[in-house]
């Protein structure tokens, strides 16, 4: 009886899960498949990782992607911290305008930003390449970083900064000795989050990288168009690995610090829903 009632939702559930996870599973399996044509299981091997890493395009792509992701996350966090702290002291209307600008950057399709930036940069003769991609990524990555840091800033007790000033700390010293330490967990989470977002981005990178630079996801895309071989799966697995590890660190940081922060900086629950919810938006 019970089983029948749940049969339909059970089947749908299995189908959805399968649809989501089987391609990923295939990637993992085929990354280890000895058979080059991927037509059947030819036994396990780690050979393709070696092949992939010997591929100059892939190596350069990895290096470019890591550079871009690092620069994007640092830039985004700086913008987010500055913005969130301004937002805290701003008036009602200014706050609303600020929030609107943040949400727009998340809601508007990435391709719109990418195309607009492409036109804008070429109009002004700004060279496409690493820097252009970093700018393009930062446009939306900083919005996610802002959400994460904002939720922490809300919970920041303003009397801590009053106390620092009262004890003789200049505004700059107060920022360094009180504000930043209070924001550290959010800064780390925002940094790692934007790092992964930037690292696996295709759209913006595709528009703004130009002909000299090719980040790893773009390399992957062009390789797929040429031929699907096991080394592509190997690269895919690498990218997946890097992303998963970073996200795992984010989650760990968030859950750990939100437990602790309740006692430490009296942060409301807002922080917990920070990056987790936002990821689904993308």
């Amino acid at each position, binding site marked *: 009886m019970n089983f029948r009632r749940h049969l339909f939702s059970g089947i749908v559930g299995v189908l959805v899960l399968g649809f989501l996870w089987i391609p990923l599973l295939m990637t993992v399996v085929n990354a280890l498949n000895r058979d080059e044509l991927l037509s059947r299981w030819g036994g396990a091997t780690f050979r393709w990782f070696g092949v992939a890493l010997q591929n100059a395009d892939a190596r350069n792509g990895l290096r470019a992607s890591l550079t871009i992701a690092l620069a994007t996350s640092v830039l985004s966090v700086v913008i987010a911290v500055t913005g969130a702290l301004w937002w805290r002291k701003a008036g009602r209307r200014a706050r609303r305008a600020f929030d609107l600008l943040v949400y727009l950057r998340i809601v508007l399709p990435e391709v719109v930003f990418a195309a607009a930036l492409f036109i804008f940069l070429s109009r002004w003769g700004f060279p496409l390449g690493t820097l252009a991609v970093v700018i393009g990524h930062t446009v939306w990555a900083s919005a996610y970083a802002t959400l994460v840091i904002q939720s922490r800033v809300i919970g920041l*007790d303003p*009397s*801590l900064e*009053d*106390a*620092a*000033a*009262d*004890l*003789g*700390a*200049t*505004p700059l*010293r*107060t920022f360094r*000795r*009180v504000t930043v*330490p*209070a924001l550290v967990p959010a800064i780390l989470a925002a940094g790692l989050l934007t790092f992964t977002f930037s690292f696996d981005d295709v759209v913006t990178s595709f528009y703004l990288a130009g002909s000299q630079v090719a980040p790893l996801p773009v390399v992957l895309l062009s390789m797929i168009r040429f031929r699907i071989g096991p080394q592509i799966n190997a690269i895919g697995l690498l990218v997946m690995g890097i992303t998963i590890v970073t996200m795992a660190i984010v989650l760990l940081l968030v859950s750990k610090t939100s437990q602790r922060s309740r*006692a*430490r*900086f009296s942060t409301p629950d807002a922080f917990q829903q920070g990056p987790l919810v936002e990821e689904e938006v993308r």
Partner: protein
Amino acid sequence: MTEPAVRLVGLEKRFGDLVAVHSLDLEVPRGTFFSIIGPSGCGKTTTLRMIAGLETPTAGRVEVAGRDLSRIPAYRRPVNTVFQSYALFPHLDVYENIAFGLREDRRPRNEIRERVREMVSLVRLGGRERSRPRQLSGGQQQRVALARALVKHPEVLLLDEPLGSLDLKLRRQLQEELKEVQRRVGITFVYVTHDQEEAFSMSDGVAVMNRGLLEQVGQPEVVYRRPATMFVAEFVGLSNRFAGRIVGQSGAGLYEVEFDAGSRVRAVGPDRLSDGQAVSVIVRPEELRIAGPSGPDSDSSDALRAIVSSISYLGPSRQLRLEAETFGELVAVVQGASRGAGEGDRVTVAWSPDAAWIVPDGPA
């Protein structure tokens, strides 16, 4: 005498249309324990924050030790604050919290260690130097906040309801500790609280504020026994209030008052009350003498007849609610818990003229 520790001159603070503090003039004598009391929203905390430099006055100025601080930011003022929520730095341990201000002043390492140690023992936190604030009890956190502010040897220590979040027993204990610390270090304390009892028990001087205005400044006893306004009379304790008007003066500060009900009494009042002026006569509950219907006061012209309507036991004393013939309800507090009038008894109520204090009826 020497300069006052704090002098406020025409100090005013507006938030939009709201006047939080209205043209305040106040002097706090050096080395005293001075309290600012008033109901919440009366502007006492805002006043404190303006002295600290955490709030910018709309008008007027703050002087500390004779120096105008108007153009001096909070981080260069010779005052320190104990915040209501303590505002201890959660990422620093007790030692580093206390050392915070000294590090900002770039004091030499040895001196910092010496002064922090001194403070730790003053507030009796020995052994807890490496604890984080969240590992401490409320009372201990309060002591850290005190030590952190005192370690800089400020001209004035500002305390913003520092005992507000503690339970009663701990409050009492820390009140005494605070008073003791103040005596020992000799620093001027400016203490903000809404609890008049707390203020009275610790302070050398008290300022009562209401709706941004200063109502009265004086020693606790003066404020209690000789309130300048009805607000002060009611804020600082229970009182019996009789409406009447001045009908004559019999000596310096001694007046004849006719109650609306017809009888006349003598009462003490401030200078320059004129005949015919509408006033209230205030008698504190513990000043009422209760006697049987034919007691010693029964002949006295000031005596009232009343019936005891209820009695509540307050431990060392009893509080009596009385229904007086023409004056309505009265409150009396009598010492001793066992003997005396019972509920429903007819009694006479009297007081000495010195205990009756005249408060002019103000517009408020």
